[in-house]
């Protein structure tokens, strides 16, 4: 019998108790949170468990919520159980002042570049990453461009008159 969201949720709660929280099912996809320092334990459990078998990391990304004091940066893991074809979303939150998250590169090789990308754009510091440097942007870039405090437009321009763009 294939796996259901309810079973996954119960297994996680049996194993971790109330450490895993905020279960949601947007569009039928199980989503939950754990404390930042628990991320590897949860991922390892999801990987190793003989029923869960979440052994494919579809995506790893970060999100910036500036209004979320103390938990500004979210790191989102999207995992796929290829046997039962079921996906889940797992989030950890970290303060933007000290965005340290343990790296998942040793569990999933795919996490290597995706963590570099999250570092590049959001400045998430993946502790223990083998090669944490910018992957897409120019090396000289001094900021993390997808954090919300940076406006989308290039701020180095002096030749664009704001009035002509309706934002004077």
């Amino acid at each position, binding site marked *: 019998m294939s796996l259901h969201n309810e079973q996954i949720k119960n297994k996680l709660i049996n194993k971790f108790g109330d450490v895993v929280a905020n279960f949601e099912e947007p569009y039928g996809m199980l989503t939950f949170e754990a404390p930042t320092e628990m991320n590897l334990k949860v991922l390892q459990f999801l990987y190793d468990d003989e029923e869960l078998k979440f052994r494919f990391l579809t995506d790893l990304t970060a999100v910036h919520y500036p209004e979320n004091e103390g938990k500004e940066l979210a790191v989102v893991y999207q995992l796929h159980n290829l046997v039962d074809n079921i996906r889940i979303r797992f989030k950890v939150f970290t303060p933007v002042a000290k965005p340290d998250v343990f790296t998942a590169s040793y569990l999933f090789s795919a996490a290597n570049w995706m963590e570099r990308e999250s570092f590049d754009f959001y400045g998430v510091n993946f502790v223990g990453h083998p090669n944490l440097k910018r992957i*897409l942007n120019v090396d000289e870039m001094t900021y993390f*461009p997808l954090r919300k405090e940076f406006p*989308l437009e*290039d701020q*180095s321009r002096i030749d664009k008159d704001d009035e002509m763009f309706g934002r004077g």
Partner: protein
Amino acid sequence: MRPVRFNIHPKEATTATAVSMVEAPEGYGGEGFFTAKLSDVVGLARKNSIWPLPFATSCCGIEFMATAAAHYDLARFGAERMAFTPRQCDLLMVMGTIAKKMGPVVKQVYLQMAEPRWVIAVGACASSGGIFDTYSVLQGIDQIVPVDVYVPGCPPRPEAILDGFMKVQELVGLESIRRRNSQQYKALMESYGIE
């Protein structure tokens, strides 16, 4: 003979007007001799044999392909010889969005070209960053290399690219042969950090 002739009043082809020749420069000539300014003659030779280096990164490059193909035919201007080595080329045609990470590549290509060299920025992105007013895109290639002619448009039609090319020809033809040794030119190069 096709069963239906669409053009019922066919015009007989004549080659008399089909071959175009370049006007001779201003000068004084007679039986077996001709005198003119050296810069005019050099300019005439240069402007009608420009070797373009297409640096195409996006949709403007597609328009350029149309420009170079038979219908618009860039070869009419003596520029049929596209080369993909900067060392042989006279004109760098930058067509398309240049990301900041691509900037050093454009500059390297420019540096590898031998003097005299010209640059044309085709399209909004190469000229000013265009719609990509964002952290990852170079806001106009004139931030890294000096540009001679800008072609506006998003993307510009082949006619516009041809017009830009003819503007370059005009610049090439009228350029003094001493320009590249002048103080102003040295200052321009230094402002871009080029020796």
